[in-house]
């Protein structure tokens, strides 16, 4: 069997983090948690996970800044798979994220837990299309 894929979840709300992390672990993924933007950025740049799931409204550093800083990393970060998972249903933020080659913007209240897990699995299996190439 191939090596376990690593998923980094950056989410300040522990109550949201736990069920999502548990579900993903049950699916056989290696899950790393970060509880604020700064911790998320540090872990992302150090671990180079297979996918980063990013909340937006977080202490220390917001998710949009984390996403932009990850993209500044020319080796891994510029093409790193990122999924925004937030309750900030703001189409302006969706457009802003698209400018950084982030096209997956999920609003938590619109998605069931199982649907989020299936979406992440699909993304990891199918791979990400790199529009910036």
């Amino acid at each position, binding site marked *: 069997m191939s090596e376990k894929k690593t998923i980094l979840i950056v989410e300040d*709300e522990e*109550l*949201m983090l736990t*069920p*999502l992390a*548990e*579900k993903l672990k*049950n699916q056989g993924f290696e899950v790393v948690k970060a509880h604020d933007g700064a911790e998320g950025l540090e872990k992302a740049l150090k671990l180079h996970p297979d996918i980063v799931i990013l909340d937006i*409204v977080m202490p220390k550093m917001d998710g949009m800044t984390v996403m932009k800083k990850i993209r500044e990393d020319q080796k891994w970060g510029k093409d790193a798979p990122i999924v925004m998972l937030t*309750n*900030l*249903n*703001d*189409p*302006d933020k969706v457009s802003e994220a698209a400018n950084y080659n982030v096209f997956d913007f999920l*609003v*938590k*209240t619109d998605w*069931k*837990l*199982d649907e989020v897990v299936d979406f992440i699995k699909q993304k990891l299996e199918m791979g990400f299309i790199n529009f910036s190439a």
Partner: protein
Amino acid sequence: MKKKRFKISHKEVAMSLSDKILIIISSSLTLVVVGVVLLAGFEVEQILLVGGSIYTLGFFLTFGVSRSFSRRMLDLTRQIEEMAAGNLSTRLQVNSRDEIGQLARAVNDLTKKLETGVAVDVSRHKEISQAKTDFVNIASHQLRTPLSIIKWYLDYLISGDAGEINDEQKKYLTEAYRGNERLIELVNGLLDVSRIDLGTFSIEPEPVDITEIVDRACDKFSNLIIKNRLTIKKEIEKMPKINLDPRLTEISFEHIISNSIKYTPVGGTIKIKMKRDKENALFKITDTGCGIPEEQQPKIFTKLFRAENARKMESVGTGLGLYIVKAVMEKAGGKIWFKSPSPELLLEENEDQNIDNKDKLRGTSFYLSIPLKGMKGKSGTKKLTSFK
């Protein structure tokens, strides 16, 4: 009879005033001098010569005075007109201490006070508007977070990930999940209403195939259509692409079509008719539903209102949909209206055109009119988000 109104310019007013002053001063001065000369016993020729000279001198003197007077009056009039037009930045030049000078000073003071007041009002209005927008954004995010926590944990429990549950437990948890979904829908709807009321939502038109939007809106409710064995009839005239905001158009059609579907009983029919006239694309969505009670019809487009029979028939619903559609249509240059009862589909289905009196009170037709030239664009900071 219509009264005629003559418009007299400020220039005419000022000039006629100065002319009158000129004549009055010259004539009075001449009369006084002629009277004095007559009393002193001068000859008529001498009197005419002296009187004529004095009249001429008086005329030129008073002409100069009145010209200056009329110019200053004109300046004052102009300044007041500028104020009325909302231009509060100009000031009068004040070089004298006479009555007109005092009047000019008073007008300048008034302009300054108005300017300061308006500036304070505008900045206060901006502050309040910004505070409201911030509140709505923060509140919507803060409300959604606990709602999504509840959603995910219920989902976690229902799927059996936290341990096996029996059928009864699953039923109760599913009910709790549905209740939470209604709350989510309400929060999304309220957020849209706030954006409408604050005027912060944008309209971004682009060429749109409206037939596709109507088809998509119907597809979204295909489960309910199948479950309730509803017949959807379409009578669609070919339409050119229209410049519409796709999101707003979709929201509008979804709300109207979902209402027809929700309030039409099992086995009923919904007909969507699209045609065009010279200037507008016209839509008519008719159902065989419960209709809207006459006494409640005036309230149908108000916020959070749900007709009594609709509430009895379908407990789920926020009462925000039609308010949102009406606001969107009006701000985009379109129109929405309805007719109820509208039993035409029931009559169509009944070959001998004979339906009982109760059925004659059923059915509703909603009409939408969208200008073919498209929606008027409107810049804004937010987009509407609610989808049923």
